[in-house]
């Protein structure tokens, strides 16, 4: 506790209301990030708190700086998104020493005492889609891989990909590319080149896109080239992606993901547990969900908010909720 918040809290009946929370993100653009931020913001609003988003433009140096200035500014709690243990451990230790609880998502801060680590199982995400690909291709064929190194989740997904290659020797990778700076159109242009290189139907069985931004570009290229026999398997799912998967003319047929909004929601809940002084697990696994076109309704267009009705395990996560938190929500709502 710090003195300043006690005064604020006294305005509200609940001691947990009116907290100032910092959300420190490594990447801060794109629909996935925006939905994740939304999840965080909504949940904190439900708890009567206030959130400040510190974006880092994919610069870990800036992220470290943001973390340190959040500690200096004496926020009540800190949320981390896509951090890196080497870069952040020092800052996180400083926060904990200052009594500020930290909950991290996909940051591999498992070595740090007192931090709760949310993780989406990236290897499993990749496995889901790759298995589906292998199944639909009948265990053989030529595939194109769209992937880029340099990002921890990508590197985890690559581990699954390697295993997949070992498991299905008859599935051959005929081309691989990927560029994170202009993911969608670059993929579109490059895949077009590959389609020209393999102009016959059946030359290419499927495209595995390790990121939804890649998948969108790949789907566009295939659709526009009229090569509808090629299927796209992606990872991650935003509202925009969902729309494409639902579209029967789109080559993108399946994706695996954790609901970005519910990641934010769960992360906030764990932070408030810590604020309440509860003992929390140091690792919380968010189970990925596999979504393919055949699971979705054909008669209407849905968003990720409605997805839980069709796909089991999506967005309905009550993970991290406690009675105290439920009470808090009602108190704040009552005000």
């Amino acid at each position: 506790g710090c003195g300043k918040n006690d005064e604020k809290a006294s305005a509200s009946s609940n001691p947990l209301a009116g907290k100032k929370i910092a959300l420190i993100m490594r990447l801060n653009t794109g629909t996935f990030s925006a939905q994740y931020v939304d999840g965080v913001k909504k949940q904190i609003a439900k708890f009567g708190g206030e959130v400040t988003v510190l974006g880092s433009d994919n610069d870990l140096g800036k992220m470290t700086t943001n973390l340190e200035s959040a500690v200096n500014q004496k926020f009540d709690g800190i949320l981390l998104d896509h951090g890196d243990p080497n870069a952040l451990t020092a800052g996180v230790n400083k926060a904990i020493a200052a009594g500020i609880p930290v909950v991290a998502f996909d940051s591999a801060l498992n070595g740090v005492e007192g931090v709760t680590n949310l993780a989406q199982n990236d290897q499993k995400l990749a496995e889901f889609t790759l298995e589906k690909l292998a199944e639909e291709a009948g265990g053989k064929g030529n595939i194109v891989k769209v992937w880029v190194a340099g990002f921890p989740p990508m590197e985890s997904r690559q581990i699954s990909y390697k295993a997949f290659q070992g498991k299905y020797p008859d599935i051959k990778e005929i081309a691989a590319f990927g560029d994170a700076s202009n993911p969608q159109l670059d993929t579109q242009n490059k895949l077009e080149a590959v389609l020209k290189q393999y102009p016959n139907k059946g030359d290419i069985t499927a495209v595995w896109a390790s990121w939804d931004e890649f998948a969108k570009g790949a789907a566009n290229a295939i659709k526009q080239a009229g090569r509808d026999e090629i299927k796209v398997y992606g990872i991650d799912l935003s509202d925009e992606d969902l729309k494409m998967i639902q579209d029967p003319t789109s080559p993108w047929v399946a994706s695996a993901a954790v609901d970005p909004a519910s990641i934010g929601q769960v992360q906030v809940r764990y932070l408030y547990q810590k604020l309440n002084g509860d003992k929390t697990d140091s690792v919380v696994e968010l189970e990925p969900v596999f979504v393919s076109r055949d699971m979705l309704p054909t008669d209407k267009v849905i968003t990720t908010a409605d997805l839980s009705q069709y796909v089991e395990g999506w967005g309905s996560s009550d993970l991290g909720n406690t009675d105290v938190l439920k009470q808090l929500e009602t108190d704040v709502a009552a005000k």
Partner: protein
Amino acid sequence: MKKHLMPFTFKYGALLFIGLVIIFFSFQNEHFFTYNNITDILRSISIVTFVAIGVTIALAVDGFDLSVGATMSLSTVVTATLMVWYELPLVLVIVIPIVVGAIVGLLNSLLIVRIRIPDLLATLAVMYIVNGIHKTYTKGYSIYNNMPLSDGSTAPGKMREDFLWIGQGKLFGVPFPVILMLIAVIAMHLFFKYTRWGRQLIMTGGNEEAARLSGLRVKRVRTYAYIASGIFAAIGGILFAARIGSGQIDAGAPYLMEAVAAVFVGYSVFAAGRPNIIGTFVGAVLMGVMVNGMTMMNIDYFKTDIARGIVLVLALAVTFIHHNRKKA
């Protein structure tokens, strides 16, 4: 003999070089030199060509425009929101982003021509501002059909089919963006070469003070140049939205450097040593050919950057070694 050879390699060296690159790729892969692949390459460079034409125009009056990438991003999201949020008719969907681009150009020229902040500095500042504006406008979201809005409802509109055709359709078997690009390249080339206003731009770029003392309204000319630069960047943004069917955040950022690279390669075409439209187009083609050819050869993506840099150096070296030998 030697005397004749030199100016020849000098003038056509860069073109020859590009020809060699194309021949190389054609031998590497039979599918490279096909009608479909060539039109694909041209389509893939259509957006960057528009942005690069903007950069060329600004450079013609001796001004560097760093804000084109940001302008393109802004134009992309504005285009998309006009359809998705506001369901406006096609004409407005095209005209409004162009007007927005012109306004950014006007802001640039205000800072450069009136307040006389040096071009690189002014356009850098505008780049920051416009980047901030376009993200603030969409709150960081990309714009797509019936996207959920922050009030919980969904957006009423979709990207219009007729709009998407601009980026994805074909006319007489040629992708429409390629047609647009060729029209723009030819028109701007003729503009610079044969019109009074084109000449005014070039002369202003040559020596602003001398041009002013010859009775040119150089401030006005430079203002128009930056506005044109903004408009071409905006067209790039519109095409981007039409091509991928949504309004991506920060879409234009990578296009700044690509466009600049194309323009710079263009300096060496016909040994101009100056910004010129045909050169810019050839530069864009070279870059597009490189990416396409290397993808077909399945070269690691990180190595393509090296190749691109080396090609740039070689093309420039061909020009400038001679260029300076002539002078010295």
